[in-house]
């Protein structure tokens, strides 16, 4: 026999050579010193390798974590507490950063403390969604088919290519874009110097315009056949917008014509032109000039509102002061500080004012009110102690039972939702961070999606899922608390956890904060679990 190669020797040493070949090689080794020593060396190599690799088994210094059948790694109450504290600090810091910053004057209107703005943005978003709901729902079937198809394609692609999170996310974004952008509804994106539209220009599409930061103002003097969505410092609409106008700016002046509604969040909005439908604003000051005319309702949340022009339908205003000088076709509803109807004002319907004092509704001589004049004064209700009422406790029992049943079903269906591998404070901190992101980002995303043409169904589904997530969040945490306290999992610990959580969230003073933190943590756990389930296929052990 000629000398075998090393590969054959290695097989021989590993005992993997066919019986006949092994016998032949063994005989050869008796007669060939070189091969014999090589085989001996390979054997020694194997022994050393086994020894080196198995060496770490002798290291008994590390502790064996406690085994728990239904949970993940051993769970630590201290870790949980650390996580809660961490989230609290992070929340405090982030809010301090958000709310405590002294913004430059130009950005003052961005200050979230300007309640009128945030209220205005929310009102705008909701109204826009409802305004366009009719159009959207005629396309609901098409939208649903598109969404289902896109989701199927997305999951199919992820499955087939088994791509990681980054690729999945990109695919997701692409599919989402594909979903929400409807054919035939083109968007003209204009930035910087192009944002202004000169009088001679006509744009057939919806215009998404962001002003040139260097320019003083952005003027829409031409004609836009679709909607106008504009962001800038000063925005002047002197031309014609046939669709709706959504503006976010410091100062907005509308001297031209708007065929739809105006949704504005700004420091000051002045309307001296024609708006065919509604004017809905969240502002510091809103001024409907004498020449201005609104074909629908005026709905404002502002510090100061001056309505000098003509409102065809209702005027609904929440403001520190409202001066009504012009015509309102139907009712006036006011809530806030003070409302004045000057001598030139005319109201076709009722005037209702929710004010602090009777004299805060001032009606000057000469003002015409077609209907009734109602003043709603705040009713002083004696503050009862809710902890002393039976209904409070009955309601809490109902809540616990509801959560208990939900929890049983939930963990039966998705056992992985039990926060298992939360062994350290950093895990909880992470969950809190993810939860905070989810809590903040999902509604914003839903609103943005809702603003697009056929995005409303997706937005509604997202929002419903979000609410469900918020509800389930505390159950997930309660299960963990119960399991940690009773060092066991099952029905009783779940119930115990729920009771503990409901007591905690009802504590005076700090209950609300605890409630919020638990929702954040639970949302974090849920979001992480969902993400893992989407990004990984279930593992097969056999």
């Amino acid at each position, binding site marked *: 026999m000629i000398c075998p190669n090393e590969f054959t020797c*290695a097989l021989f040493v590993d005992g993997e050579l066919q019986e006949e070949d092994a016998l032949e090689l063994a005989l050869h080794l008796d007669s060939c010193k070189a091969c014999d020593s090589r085989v001996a060396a390979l054997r020694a190599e194997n022994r050393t390798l086994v020894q080196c690799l198995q060496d770490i088994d002798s290291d008994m210094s590390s502790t064996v974590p406690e085994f728990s059948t239904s949970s993940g790694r051993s769970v630590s109450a201290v870790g949980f507490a650390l996580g809660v504290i961490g989230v609290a600090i992070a929340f405090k810091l982030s809010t301090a950063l958000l709310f405590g910053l002294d913004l430059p004057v130009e950005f003052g209107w961005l200050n979230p403390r300007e309640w009128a703005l945030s209220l205005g943005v929310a009102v705008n978003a909701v109204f826009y969604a409802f305004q366009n709901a009719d159009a959207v729902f005629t396309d609901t079937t098409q939208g649903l088919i598109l969404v289902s198809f896109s989701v199927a394609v997305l999951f199919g692609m992820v499955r087939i290519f088994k791509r990681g999170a980054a690729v999945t996310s990109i695919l997701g974004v692409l599919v989402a874009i594909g979903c929400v952008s409807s054919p035939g509804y083109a968007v003209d994106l204009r930035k910087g110097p192009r944002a202004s539209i000169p009088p001679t220009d006509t744009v057939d599409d919806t215009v998404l315009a962001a002003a040139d930061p260097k320019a003083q103002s952005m003027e829409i003097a031409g004609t836009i056949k679709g909607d106008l969505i504009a962001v800038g410092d000063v925005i002047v609409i002197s031309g014609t917008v046939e669709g709706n106008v959504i503006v976010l700016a410091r100062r907005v002046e509308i001297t031209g014509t708007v065929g739809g509604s105006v949704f504005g969040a700004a420091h000051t909005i002045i309307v001296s032109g024609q708006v065919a439908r509604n004017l809905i604003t969240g502002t510091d000051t809103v001024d409907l000039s004498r020449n201005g005319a609104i074909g629908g309702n005026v709905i404002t949340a502002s510090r100061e509102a001056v309505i000098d022009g003509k409102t065809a339908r209702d005027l609904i205003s929440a403001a520190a002061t409202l001066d009504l000088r012009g015509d309102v076709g139907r009712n006036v509803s006011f809530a806030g500080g003070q409302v004045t109807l000057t001598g030139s004002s005319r109201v076709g319907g009722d005037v209702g004012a929710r004010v602090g004092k009777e004299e805060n509704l001032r009606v000057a001589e000469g003002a015409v009110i077609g209907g009734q004049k109602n003043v709603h004064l705040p009713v002083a209700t004696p503050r009862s102690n809710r902890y002393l009422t039976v209904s409070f406790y009955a309601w809490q029992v109902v809540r616990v039972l509801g959560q208990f049943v939900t929890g049983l079903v939930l*963990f039966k269906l998705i056992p992985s939702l039990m926060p298992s591998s939360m062994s350290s404070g950093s895990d909880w901190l992470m969950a809190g961070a993810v939860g905070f992101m989810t809590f903040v980002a999902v509604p914003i995303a839903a609103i943005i999606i809702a603003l697009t043409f056929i995005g409303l169904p997706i937005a509604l589904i997202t929002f419903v899922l979000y609410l469900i997530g918020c509800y389930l969040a505390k159950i997930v945490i309660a299960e963990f608390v119960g399991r940690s306290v009773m060092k066991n999992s099952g029905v009783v610990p779940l119930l115990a956890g729920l009771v503990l959580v409901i007591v905690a969230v009802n504590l005076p003073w700090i209950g609300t904060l605890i409630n919020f933190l638990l929702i954040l943590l639970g949302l974090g756990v849920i979001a992480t679990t969902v993400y893992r389930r989407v990004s990984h296929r279930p593992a097969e052990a056999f």
Partner: protein
Amino acid sequence: MVGAVETRKQPIDLDFEVVYNMHYRRVLNLCRYLLNSPDKAEDAAHEAFLRAHARLDSYNPAYPLSTWIFKIASNYCIDLLRRKTAEKRIFDVDAGDHYDPPSGGSSPLSEVLAAERGRDVRNALGSLTEKYRVPLVLAYYNELSYEEISAILGVERSQVAVLIFRGKEYLRERLGKRLGKEKPR
């Protein structure tokens, strides 16, 4: 799961805790070798025991329980590795691997290893790609036969042989102190 665990727990749990405490470190080490990450290994080890516990019914007492658990752990880890990469057939031997090894070959590890500490070997092993690391771990840490490894990895037995042979060669290269006279492939 809440209810199910309750009912099934009592008779098995006592024994299983003993099994767990006895084998945890070894399973953890196996996962460390396979996954090359201490953190992931802890999760994987725990998952392996969870799976073992959940599937105790399917355990055949004719074989050692430890072997069964190691098998679950290795299967789980390999599944994780497969999931990590886009290429599912990570253990397939490509054309470049089908070579006829020279009769000379490189010098065995033994001489190198004698001088090296176990940690260096483990580090060198950790630096290998999973394609070579996993078969080596299964062969020399778990001491499985080529046949068993081929079943776990889902490749031919002959491919396992090549992977292990190549793996050891790379290991020698990584350890850097080849004492062989012939130039290794």
